[in-house]
């Protein structure tokens, strides 16, 4: 089970995992989306559940292996100012303000970088400036906020204080049309990439919202004979094969998010296929990252240390490979400062981090 993925002039080397299953404090609780701020700080929205009500946003410093640090929980479950029922999208602007969309209350709440509530806006509906199940958020260079208005199958642009600026798209499967889109990202030219969830594709739009390109088509796999189904809906782990339990490159099953690196390579969380698909800037598939968390995160290790029966059981299992793999990844970010691909591994309540290695020199075959 290699930790390094090599393909067409690119090398991705698994670095480490961050997080564990926790309703609050150090850990995650079903991350729906995340965004990177300065200095390796990351904000993540957690969906929680109706038992622990762990819905919240957390602020985490990723650091290197073993350096993860929990900085704050905010935007907890509730209806008043500074609270969310279902926090979903998150983005940070140039003033370090954090924008959070609420999938249920159809609002956008704004916090400072410590999580102090600033203001909120948004109301339910389908008219201009009205929202229905808002999902991903992105901040334009001019400071305006693009909201993936998922229930209305469109994008809407707002000023930072919530004034409607513009919109594009509507329901459908044609070019520039959407079906319950989820995540969004901008490249350095300001082009817009949207994970068009129910259309199983990514669309690229110009900064003005004009359709430029689409890529990805629906594909999934049946449970292969003899595999280990991690859940009823996969992933299907076939020991000794990195491809057997996954569809061909370029196939997508309910993609949730997109990231673009400075070279123009595009990363898509292929949620239903439990992987990150890497595409070149033209939308040609390059390779897939399926999760390689062979080493526990710092917090994960703490949990195991506190629970001797878990530690014991881990030493008895036939293979821990199912635990290495991504399970419904929801969000992806690229950190140019560290050349890292950061993946929110939603069902496993952790992040998996890969380094894009630029100066990789191959070793001698006869080592």
């Amino acid at each position: 089970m290699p930790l390094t993925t090599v393909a067409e002039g690119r090398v991705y080397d698994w670095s480490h995992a961050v997080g564990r299953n926790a309703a609050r404090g150090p850990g995650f609780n079903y991350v729906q989306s995340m965004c990177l701020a300065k200095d390796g700080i990351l904000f993540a929205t957690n969906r929680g559940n109706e038992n622990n009500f762990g819905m919240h946003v957390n602020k985490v410093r990723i650091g290197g292996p073993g350096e993860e640090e929990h900085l704050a929980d905010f935007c907890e479950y509730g209806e008043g100012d500074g609270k969310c029922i279902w926090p979903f999208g998150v983005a940070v602007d140039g003033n370090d303000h954090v924008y959070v969309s609420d999938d249920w209350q159809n609002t956008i709440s704004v916090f400072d970088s410590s999580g102090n509530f600033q203001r909120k806006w948004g109301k339910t509906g389908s008219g201009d400036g009205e929202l229905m199940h808002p999902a991903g958020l992105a901040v334009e260079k001019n400071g305006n906020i693009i909201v993936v208005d998922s229930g209305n199958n469109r994008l809407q642009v707002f000023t930072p204080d919530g004034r409607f600026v513009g919109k594009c798209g509507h329901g459908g499967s044609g070019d520039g049309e959407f079906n319950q889109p989820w995540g969004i990202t901008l490249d350095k030219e300001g082009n817009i990439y949207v994970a068009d969830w129910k259309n199983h594709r990514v669309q690229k739009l110009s900064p003005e919202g004009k359709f430029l390109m689409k890529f990805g088509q629906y594909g999934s796999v049946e449970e292969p004979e003899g595999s280990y189904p991690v859940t009823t809906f996969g992933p299907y782990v076939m020991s000794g094969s990195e491809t057997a339990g996954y569809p061909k490159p370029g196939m997508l099953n309910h993609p949730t998010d997109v990231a673009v690196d400075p070279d123009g390579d595009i990363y898509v969380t292929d949620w239903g296929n439990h992987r990150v698909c890497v595409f070149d800037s033209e939308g040609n598939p390059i390779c897939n990252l399926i999760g390689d968390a062979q080493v526990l995160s710092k917090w994960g290790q703490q949990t195991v240390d506190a629970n001797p029966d878990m530690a014991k059981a881990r030493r008895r299992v036939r293979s821990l490979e199912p635990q290495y793999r991504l399970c419904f990844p929801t969000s992806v970010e690229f950190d140019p400062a560290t050349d890292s691909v950061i993946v929110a591994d939603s069902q496993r309540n952790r992040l998996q981090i890969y380094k894009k290695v630029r100066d990789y020199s191959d070793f001698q075959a006869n080592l």
Partner: protein
Amino acid sequence: MAYQDDIALMAHLMRRAGFGAGREELEARVAKGYEATVEELLDPETQPPVDAYTLLRYQPASLLPGGQPPMGNVNWMYYLVNTKRPLEEKMALFWHHVFATGNSKVDNYDQLLQQIELFRENGMGNYRELLVKVAKNPTMIFWLDNQQNHGTAVNENWGRELLELFSLGAGNYTEKDVRECSRAFTGWTFETKIPRAPYGRFPWRFEYRPEDHDDGEKEFLGHKGRFNGEDIIDIVVQQPACGKFICRHLYNFFVADEPQVPAWPIEAPQDQKAIDTLVGAFRDAKFDMKPVLRTLFNSDFFKNARFKHMKSPAEVVASTLRMVGGHELPKPGYGELSMQPTYMGQDLLNPPSVEGWHTGKEWINSGSLMARINFVAEKVGDTSLPGVRAIIDRIKTKGSVSPEQLVDDCLDLIGPVEVGADTKQELTSQAKEWGQISWGNGNADVADQRVGQMLQLIAATREYQFG
């Protein structure tokens, strides 16, 4: 009148083979025909499956819900409310009644849901194959301790329940058969599972350990051989008692309430001929469930059994939510909604014991009666819900209705429901208090409310508790 009777019969079929249907759906199905509807129900693949991805987008925690409610209940409730394959889901519920496995011991809704998925996929297939799959189902193995059933030390829990509760019924085997049956299942266990900490749960996997299997000769129900588990199942399904037992379960679940299972060895079925008919179909089809169900739904004894079955809490909740509408997408509060059957005495995925739930009149006690009436009343009284609006809109087309018409229309559109003369008189007396109901002259709100209140009162009747 004949058309009205077709509607009533179709409503009966949809209540039993599914979780009810609104008036529009009933009309469409009547147009299609009764037998054609039965065929559609028996062929679930012709309808799209439930969109689990939408559930997981909104409620990701319902995939691997762990040991605490309500996220496991949320998962199943979403299927119950949304399925377009009602009989598939109803059969999953049926087998959950029979192969009752509970979270109280398993502590793992993930595994219980996976077992329900097994019932969904195989519930209308071959009963022999289903038994084999259940015997290999790690959740069942743990529930009945078969991982502790060793070649050197037999644990009879699974072996006994296989015969008593899952296939033959008490009185159709000896203690020696239990012993021999259990020996045959030694070595049927599961792999050590990846523990839940720190990244959440992973599934169990069946494992057969030949070195732990007692390969010696067994004598079971008159047969002799070095039987393994599947051989035992082959012998079991051939027993005349097996067909009788399973078909009586089907009758009790789909046709009319029978006494509780422990009484079956003593009390004869209320309709022996019906059971014989089903048993014949079961045998002829070599234990395929579909032909048995086809026989059942097309039989006169089924068609004549309207309202002879006390609705289970799962049926009450699922059929109410499907009727009133507006609960298709997961939303905050779905957890509480999905616990409603629990409050009425049927904690789905957590039956009180391996004997499953006592059904029929035993669903009713003072607490559960109040819980079920209040739940249904709250929903049917909410005139903003689309299904309630649809009922109101149909009545509204008349512009104005008399008290008698209001009662008749409400009874018709919420069912049709048949009530006794005394009940009807009380409903009518109440409607008379309100007088003529009219939607004109700014009275629409009051009129809507009156319909809602009449529906609530109907939901509170004894008759409405039957389906």
